[in-house]
């Protein structure tokens, strides 16, 4: 593929992610994780992202596909997406397991009281996939979400706040952003009666 075709393919791939559904899910994940942490049930917060990942495609098929249409990208792109997804799931699963393990060790007092900077660690862990996703899809707003999470992590440490405060704050902002994008998308692209002539 030459440069013009590559850029067209990238534009088509980029437009695939502009509906706001993923943003809304990311925001909800942060909100639920924050609430679960606040209420002392962090395990629920760890399970919810997996449920969201499983729900994304059926929701996309129901809400987005009838409006934006169906596309199957080239084999090369499909391979890249598969590798990225496997890497992302591996990273998130690893981060969750390590997070829950460390939390359990603190609660059982096996580990010493953590340093103050650790409060920002969950948000830093979540900012990394957002940053990688932004680079992969060229969706700049995910870069802003990653930056927001990193700034919130710093804010938590400086103000000696609990991690859930940062998760909730970022969750609200990203959910609202995703919600606005989704509403705009639904208004801009009316549902086609049929995806045929």
């Amino acid at each position, binding site marked *: *593929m030459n440069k013009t*075709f590559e850029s*067209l*393919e990238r534009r*088509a791939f980029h*437009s695939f992610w502009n509906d706001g559904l993923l943003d809304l899910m990311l925001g909800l994940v942060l909100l639920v994780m924050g609430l679960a942490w606040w209420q002392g049930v962090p395990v629920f917060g760890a399970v919810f992202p997996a449920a969201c990942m499983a729900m994304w495609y059926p929701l996309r*098929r*129901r809400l987005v*596909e*009838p*409006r*934006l*249409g*169906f*596309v*199957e*990208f*080239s*084999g090369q792109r*499909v391979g890249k997406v598969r590798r990225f997804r496997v890497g992302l799931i591996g990273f998130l699963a690893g981060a969750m397991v390590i997070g829950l393990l460390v939390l359990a060790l603190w609660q059982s007092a096996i580990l010493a009281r953590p340093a103050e900077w650790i409060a920002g660690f969950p948000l830093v862990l979540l900012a990394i996939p957002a940053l990688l996703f932004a680079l992969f899809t060229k969706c700049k707003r995910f870069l802003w979400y990653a930056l927001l999470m990193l700034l919130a992590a710093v804010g938590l440490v400086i103000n000696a706040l609990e991690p859930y405060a940062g998760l909730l704050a970022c969750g609200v902002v990203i959910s609202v952003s995703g919600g606005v994008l989704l509403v705009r998308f639904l208004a801009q*692209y009316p549902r*086609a*009666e*049929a*995806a*045929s*002539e």
Partner: protein
Amino acid sequence: MSAEESPADLDRLLHEPARLQALVQLAVVSRADFTWLLQQTGMSRGNLSVQMSKLAEAGVVKVEKRFHNNRPQTLYQLTSHGRAALQQYKESMQRILNALPDQG
């Protein structure tokens, strides 16, 4: 411009902005449905439908009709003949434009 190649020799099926636009969209993906092409090209349903029918009749695109999510769906895919025709068109166009003297 070479004696063998002139704008009049360009593939007229492809040398039409609406059809070319749809073909270029199909060239960068594996396959896409009517709605996707509609959104990406910004054409009207009627215009896109007419252009895609012409491309299908010429064997440039393959058409597959199916039900997806309980809705009728028409999928389009560039055929190998279509890919070759698009490549040929691109090369011809490049040669013609390269032979054009610089203006100003």
